[in-house]
């Protein structure tokens, strides 16, 4: 076993372990942290495949941005995990049997037909080979059409998220700076003529007595 193989199997088993922990552990914060571990192990596996750019982007985007946000949300929301898992044990036997059957079938079919030996090894590149540049060239030339569609999907996600959450609730308290600046004294201040305080106080006392 070469070092590369050892590294692959090590990171792959950490990845599988972390992924299993994400869905089985009770505490959502720990679950999110295990997802970070899973992403990190996946990035390491990609490094062994010489996909450095993808690995770094995975760590930067998913671990650095998405998971941190996710952790914030998990910590801020009071999620009752027991309630979410209410049907878990009830559906576990059926779901488990279906899942195991499916996995066995897939393994049975694919193990007989797919083997790494069928495929030629990818060509190895020199040390100064930049897969960032290669990816960029592909994305902006051959794959420009799917790339742009993916961009529109992200735009739609932004529009949908804002449209669904920024709702114009009926009594919305919002400051309109233009109106605020243009306000005059007459709009805010009203002078009311009132009788002197002593007589009203006197009458109040009489009311109380009667």
């Amino acid at each position: 076993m070469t070092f590369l193989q050892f590294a692959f199997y090590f990171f792959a088993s950490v990845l599988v372990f972390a992924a299993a922990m994400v869905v089985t552990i009770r505490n959502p914060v720990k679950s999110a942290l295990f997802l970070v571990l899973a992403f990190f192990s996946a990035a390491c596996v990609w490094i062994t495949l010489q996909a450095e750019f993808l690995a770094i982007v995975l760590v930067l985007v998913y671990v650095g941005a998405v998971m941190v946000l996710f952790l914030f949300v998990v910590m801020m929301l009071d999620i009752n995990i027991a309630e979410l898992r209410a049907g878990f044990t009830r559906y576990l036997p059926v779901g488990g049997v279906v899942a195991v059957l499916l996995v066995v079938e897939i393994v049975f079919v694919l193990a007989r037909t797919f083997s790494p030996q069928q495929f030629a090894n990818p060509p190895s590149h020199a040390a100064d080979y930049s897969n960032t540049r290669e990816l960029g060239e592909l994305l902006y030339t051959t794959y420009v059409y799917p790339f742009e569609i993916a961009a529109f999907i992200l735009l739609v996600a932004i529009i949908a998220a804002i449209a669904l959450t920024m709702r114009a609730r009926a009594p919305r308290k919002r400051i309109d700076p233009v109106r605020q600046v243009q306000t005059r004294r007459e709009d805010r201040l009203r002078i009311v003529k009132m009788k002197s305080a002593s007589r009203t106080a006197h009458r109040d006392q009489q009311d109380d007595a009667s």
Partner: protein
Amino acid sequence: MNFASLNAAAARAEIFLAVAACAILLLGVYGDQARRAARCYGLSLVALVIAALLNGLDFSAANGSAFNHMFIADPMAKLLKIAICVLSAAAFVYGRQYNRHRGIFESEYYVLGLFAVTGMLVMASANHLLTLYLGLELMSLCLYAMIAYYRDDRLATEAAMKYFVLGALASSMLLYGMSLLYGFTGSLQLSVISSVLTADAATAAQPQAAIALAVVFIVVALAFKLGVAPFHMWVPDVYHGAPTSTTAFLSAAPKIAAFAITMRLIVGGLNALPDIWQQMLILLALLSVAIGNIIAIAQRNLKRMLAYSTVAHMGFFLFGIASGNAPGYSAALFYVLIYALMGLGAFGVILMLARPEYEADQLADLKGLSKRNPWLAFLLLLLMLSMAGLPPTVGFFAKLAVIHALVQSGLLWVAVLAVLLAVIGAFYYLRVIKLVYFDQPPSADPATAAQTTTTITEGDIAVSPAAILLLSCNVLAIIALLPWIHYLIAICNEVIRRFAV
């Protein structure tokens, strides 16, 4: 890669629509709430019509491809795109008043609609698994948001959530199937996949079981997206829960897009393996025609009933694909276009009947409609006759074409079962006619009752005459098209003949 292979002009409708949607999104920021929504609504209609025209201009031009063969422009794509744009615009017109009453007449709703249409156009001319999937996701994401847009309604939120979760599940299955297919053929391009599989089938080089596994995942995912039994569970809940304007939108153009993705993937990509997918499609189609037609009988809600009717109709169009020959594909194309017209019309009638605080979506609400609103009652009569497949309507010819294709490909027993199940389905369509024409109206008109409880002026409630006129044209088309029916079928045949693989 150079500009000749880029050939972006072939995708001008998609590019125009996407840019127009972005522009409308920006225009929707200025002005007061009511004016900007009306402006965005109008501009969306203009954009959809222009996109349809852009596709119609060179309808009979030779097949072309763009973006390194990821995009294909054949007559089928153009025909489907024109139908998608026109029907989506009609759905917007029908739903305008409904949306205004429910506080969802907002610019973003129409922008999401335009992006959904863009996704459908992408699907219609996808020649690459990546663009196919991305177009599907673009459409689905917009649809989830459009369903959830009626935020004050618990049912709508629930429907959106259900659709989202099941849609994500279906997408993951599709992706898994696609990844297996990529593993076997070494390409994501449908034309390459097709030729590799054909070459392998000739030499028996590929392991059948493994390819079948990939096909199963793809067919199951498509069945989810089409909403055919036994993967139809989301259809009634989504159709019922969504605001009716969104249901009308859902019932027309996405069905055409679903036809496109089925044709591209199954007929375009997997045409070398008909004996693997044919049986699966026949089973799916039979189950959905049976389940759709039988469960629809038990429904008390008009939207749910039409949802089960959709399941049945989707099954019927799958018969066309399952027959595995060119007449079958052509019949399926004809069927799905006619169905989209009918489905949109049916939800259009519900939209016209709806008032503030009153959805008009119970079957009981239709009692005695002929006395209250004779014209809408007549339109509903035509729609139900056509959906049931009775002879004086195009619905009959659509069903006839599919059955004919089934018989031609030697699947006589399937054809017999299909006809029997369609007869069962006729029951609930005819029941609607009975309710509309022969039942006494309830003592208090529910529509007027709802009007009196809410203090809304008459002018605000009235449905615009333009919407009624468009709906009438839409519904009357299912009778008026009769003299040209052979011409239409000939167009479908020609389109399928030139279907680019």
